[in-house]
């Protein structure tokens, strides 16, 4: 009884504190579970409430754009570093560098952007359809006849992380990489839509593999008993970093800064690791392979931001329209 009363009292105190504080508004293109987890933990630690708006990158960007004359969001997390740089170049990002940013991996913080975490873009196969000795070791193994008509890829025009893959892949492999994609398309690769649309045919067994799909969702699926395997080709693959930033003109900049600090703290980063992303902070254990355990392709992020739009367009005209015409 007394314990109940005490709990009630504590709740009331917390609630009172929460009501007294100006809320932080958080727009995120990341997973909803992580966003809510971070918000709850932050509120418990500071008493500052967090309003979470979780949507796709496209929706978050459209909303920021439309709200430009009167910004509503304090903190923003996007699914692609290139999009973050683009936003920064257009004046959406306040130049806030969190004191926690010095603890993140080298190169994972730049200007007003700091990585919240990262995910690799891998080859994901259905283990009921693909035996272990068939697993591709190289991107170029996928040109084998056993993969004809068996592959999907997310559309870089719709998926920010697939666009990031395209740009980094092109930086590293140049025209050779482009020919690979064209040959795969020639051999019947499907580009059905965003990440989920590419993964679904692999889950049902209709297709055997998807390439350039974010890996952390599939780690979660495997943990839930789904028959998938996540493969990293030996040449290496792209790692998409997810930038967190304070919005320029944020209605609650102090609260937003505190939330970013929390997100990058050891406690916040443990939550990031908990959804099978690569934590940004050095020393926070990952629950999945990290660069080094697989080969991460080097990336020039400014170049990604410069080239990604043209590459998406080129992908559409050369790869997607080729597929459409063949059908």
């Amino acid at each position: 009884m007394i314990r109940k009363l005490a709990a009630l009292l504590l709740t009331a105190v917390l609630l009172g504190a929460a009501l007294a504080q100006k809320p932080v508004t958080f727009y995120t293109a990341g997973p909803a579970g992580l966003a809510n987890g971070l918000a709850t933990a932050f509120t418990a630690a500071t008493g500052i409430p967090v309003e979470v708006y979780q949507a796709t990158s496209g929706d978050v960007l459209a909303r920021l754009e439309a709200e430009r004359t009167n910004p509503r969001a304090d903190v923003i997390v996007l699914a692609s570093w290139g999009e973050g740089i683009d936003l920064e170049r257009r004046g959406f990002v306040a130049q806030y560098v969190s004191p926690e940013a010095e603890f993140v991996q080298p190169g994972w913080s730049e200007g007003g952007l700091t990585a919240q975490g990262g995910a690799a873009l891998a080859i994901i196969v259905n283990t009921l359809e693909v035996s272990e000795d068939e697993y591709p070791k190289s991107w170029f193994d996928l040109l084998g006849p056993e993969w004809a008509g068996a592959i999907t890829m997310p559309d870089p025009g719709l998926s920010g992380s697939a666009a990031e893959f395209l740009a980094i892949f092109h930086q590293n492999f140049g025209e050779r990489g482009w020919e690979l994609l064209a040959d795969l398309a020639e051999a019947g690769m499907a580009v059905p839509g965003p990440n989920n649309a590419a993964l679904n045919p692999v889950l049902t067994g209709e297709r055997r593999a998807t390439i350039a799909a974010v890996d952390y969702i599939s780690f979660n699926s495997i943990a839930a008993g789904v028959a998938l395997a996540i493969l990293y080709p030996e040449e290496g693959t792209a790692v998409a970093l997810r930038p967190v930033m304070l919005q320029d003109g944020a209605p609650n900049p102090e609260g937003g800064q505190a939330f970013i600090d929390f997100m990058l703290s050891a406690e916040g980063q443990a939550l990031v690791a908990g959804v099978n992303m690569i934590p940004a902070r050095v020393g926070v254990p990952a629950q999945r392979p990290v660069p080094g355990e697989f080969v991460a392709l080097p990336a020039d992020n400014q170049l990604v931001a410069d080239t990604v739009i043209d590459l998406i367009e080129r992908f559409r005209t050369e790869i997607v329209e080729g597929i459409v015409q063949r059908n």
Partner: protein
Amino acid sequence: MSTSGAARSTRFRPSPALGRYLLIAGLALLIVYPLVMVVASVLFAEAWGARPLSLADLRADRVVRAWRNTLVLGGLVTLLSVLFGMAGALLAHRSRWARLVDAAMAVPFLTPPFLVSLAWSQIVGSRGYAARLGLDGLALQDALYSVGGMAVLMATSYAPLVYYAVRAQLARLPGGLVWAAAISGADRLTRLVRVVLPLLVPAVAAGGFLAFASAIGEYGTPLVIGQRIGDPGLAALLNSLGLALGAAAVGLVVGLLAARAGRVSLLLASIPVAVPAITTAVGFIRAWNAPWAASLPVYGTGTILLLYYLLQYLPFVAQYVAAGQAGMSTNLELAARVHGATRLRNLAHVALPLLWPHALAGAIMIFSISFRELVGSVLLRPPSLHTTSTFIIQQFDQGSMVAGTAMGVVAVLAALLSTVTAWLFAGKNAA
């Protein structure tokens, strides 16, 4: 027609013109102002310090190409919707199963389009359900993903717009004309072609127009926004129920008045259906989040969604009622006037009983489509408020296919239940 008659007579009415101007001003504020904000933001992008959302996309020739496809597809969808909708309405008319058909026709309209495409993607293909039943899943897939296949699929979604307009018209068909034709020796086919069909033209035109506009509006959105698809689903369900019900109730009244108050207000009330949902939504943010409007409790609260549903789908009621008026004999209203009925009496005792089925049909359509609306809801919802569609899409996005699908089924059933109840109520009132 009736309004121009009223303008000529000066004997009664306190000041109907004032009411009409207020209505027009209100509609202009709510509908035209957000659109002006979108256009202004495109024209004065530099001064506003923001890149306009869609200017670059609009310039890109890919969108031009897509629009050409959209227009062809939209035309095809409209044609098929008119065919399906009219055939359904004529078959249901005077049939014992009419109420059942009414309810059945609501299902495709109530089902979110992204759920429909997801369902089909599970059916077709070499490993789909069809293939498991021994059918050729791949051939089915090719057929479905052709222009014709997409048109048929979309037409099943939009045929109800024609169906309900025609049903409402048939319920109010001047029986005397059909009788006269029958007495003069016209057979069933002649009566259908020469008497009934011409009387249905306004309803078919209204429904076809709505189908076309909805088809191109909804199809155009994924180009701009991408088609990527926590808190308890029950809250989301209740939010949607409340918002859709509110939008339908207010839309019923405003749409009816707008259609009655003359051409200007009818035109204003019909604008939104021709504007893509994404454009309206961006305009709403620019209009109601502007420094001079941000302190009003509109943007950032559920009100913005209510307003959006109400205005985006106001054309349903306005067009249905206008179609009803076009098919209505003006003699009754003139007769009432001659006998000294005031405008209000005329509206309450003559026009309203005749237009009621049309208005109600439109309001039910507002409810149904608001309940499952996605594009605008995603952009406009306050951070912590979910509607059924935004909730479902978030579940899919997080990989919770089962939770998303389950919520989808519950949502469609809930909407169907509400719609059937409304139709039963309408049936009782129309009889």
